[in-house]
């Protein structure tokens, strides 16, 4: 397991080796902490699930474990920030965002505290454990909160880059740290820029906008469409808030339609954000792929496929838009 770069996509991205973003997370956090005494970890007993055992060994005083108490965890992080520390709160995203939503709103966002909320194992990462442990709502919930930057990295390289950006940037941020292994999409020297999209594959017929664990699936869909003669643009949109509306509007103007694809609810996530931009600036056809319901039993991969986010499923949605009108 490593965070170093893999060669740029050769053959299909689906055939590339895959990595758990949590490893990049813990390695980056330890590196940041070694170079900045202000960095601390804050957890809700989630030392193991956040893979923070080595961090705890290296910085025993700087891993604040409040026990299974998420409201206290986020309030404590706000208080640590009041004292000049830079807390990285590491907790399963479902509990972090669901249990402590009011603390995120009042203590972090509205109080403008320099707290980094790291939602571990988001989306449907907990698979068969079911909707209580799925965190498909986190992006939509936090997107409704002012003064919150939401980042959904697509691979270990982007996870590390987003953390370095967050550590260097004063203010609240939410970073989703995937558990389901993904291939590297980005080159090793990738620089994350908050609020900026990146076109990871150019195309003029139709656009797929994605992030997180679904980005590589979107790229694989575009590969498939290319073999059919359909040119699909794939836009990586790691920052859901603030959204890169220029990239969205350009896609709306230049291609026949936009598919959004994400490991999150179809209500109010990336798809909602893109739709809000499109409908106000340049209405176009859209398909919003995501999770529309409390998911039945199944692994995250199985469920993504079920909800039309296999490479073939995403290609189907994009093809329909490319062929229409």
């Amino acid at each position, binding site marked *: 397991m490593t965070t170093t770069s893999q060669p740029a996509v050769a053959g299909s991205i689906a055939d590339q080796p895959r990595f758990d973003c949590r490893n990049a997370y813990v390695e980056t956090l330890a590196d940041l902490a070694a170079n900045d005494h202000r960095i*601390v970890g804050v957890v809700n007993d989630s030392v193991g699930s956040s893979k923070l055992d080595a961090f705890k060994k290296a910085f025993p*005083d*700087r891993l*604040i474990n*409040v*026990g299974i*108490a998420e*409201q*206290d965890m*986020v*309030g*404590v*992080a*706000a*208080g*640590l*920030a*009041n*004292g*000049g*520390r830079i*807390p990285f709160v590491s907790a399963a995203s479902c509990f972090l965002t669901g249990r402590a939503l*009011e*603390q995120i709103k*009042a*203590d972090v966002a*509205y*109080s*403008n505290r320099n707290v980094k909320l790291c939602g571990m194992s988001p989306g449907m990462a907990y698979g068969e454990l079911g909707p209580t442990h799925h965190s498909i709502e986190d992006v939509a919930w936090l997107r409704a909160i002012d003064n919150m930057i939401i980042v959904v990295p697509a691979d270990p390289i982007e996870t590390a880059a987003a953390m370095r950006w967050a550590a260097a940037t004063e203010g609240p941020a939410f970073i989703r740290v995937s558990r389901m292994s993904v291939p590297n999409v980005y080159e090793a020297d990738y620089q994350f820029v908050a609020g900026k999209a990146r076109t990871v594959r150019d195309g003029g017929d139709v656009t797929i906008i994605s992030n997180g664990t679904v980005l590589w699936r979107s790229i694989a869909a575009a590969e498939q469409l290319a073999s059919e003669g359909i040119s699909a643009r794939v836009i990586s949109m790691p920052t859901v808030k603030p959204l890169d509306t220029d990239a969205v509007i350009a896609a709306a103007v230049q291609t026949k339609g936009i598919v959004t694809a994400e490991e999150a609810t179809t209500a109010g996530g990336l798809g909602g954000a893109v739709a809000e931009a499109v409908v106000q600036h340049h209405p176009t056809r859209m398909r919003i792929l995501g999770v529309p319901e409390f998911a039945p039993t199944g692994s995250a991969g199985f469920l993504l496929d079920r909800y039309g986010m296999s490479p073939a499923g995403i290609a189907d949605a994009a093809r329909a838009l490319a062929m229409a009108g």
Partner: protein
Amino acid sequence: MTALAPEHATMPVLGRLSPYAMREEQIRHIAEAARQIRLQDLKLVHYAGAGHIGGDLSAIDVLATLYGAVLNVSPETVDDPERDRFFLSKGHVAGALYTTLAAFGFIAVDELATFLKPLSRLNGHPNRNKVPGIEANTGPLGHGLPIAVGHAISAKLDVSRRRTYVLVGDGELQEGSNWEAMMAASQYELDSLTVIVDRNRLQQGATVRETNDLDPLDQKAAAFGFSVVEVNGHDHGELLDVLSSAPFRPGKPTFVIAHTHKGHPISFMSNNVAWHHKVPDTDQLQRAIDELESPDHTAN
């Protein structure tokens, strides 16, 4: 009723005495500050037509004691990393806090005339990004104590002598987040942390006992690892002695149960649940002012 206007915000700026002033002198100074803050705050609520006067009046003696003689923070040091921190968890008594901050020079007295007005930075709940001296944007209950615990942990990591105080309402302790934070305070042996409970025994519409009783609060706090002290929350001497002497046991956070009355010391408001957020009319305001200005008025 006329609207809140500059002529209604005229309290004197009292500032602080030298830390070397005699205890009796400090107590007299705090008492006068508390009296002036009450007079001013009653006018704010009356002329603004809104506020939480009952809880304001139960908390003012604690606020006046903290800012008047306990906290190591001044208008000049509001951004000093080594300042003491005070978190007002019961954020709905923002009017009392703004008036206290004005009394000690953190904000201008005449700005109090903007309380609750459109676009005023003196909102119904405090905003740290707008008002100097505010440490957290509180309002929803059960938030201040976890934040205070986090700050106290930061002070411990820094091996700093700065202290952390948080004022919570007693009804507010029904929020479970407080008890989560108290467990952490004990686990981390945060003896620089002092929790002050405004124990006025009333919540919005009924007594705490009738609603979801807290007693035996002293035993509960002790069982959560706190060193517990009970004081008359309107006695400036008791408050000064306790708040400036904490901690009482090394390694243990302090839990001060300040026994208070909502609406204190106004005869027709005191311990009357109706005054949670009732607004005094012109006659009631004058009667309250008369009581506070009467030679018979004693701070306690």
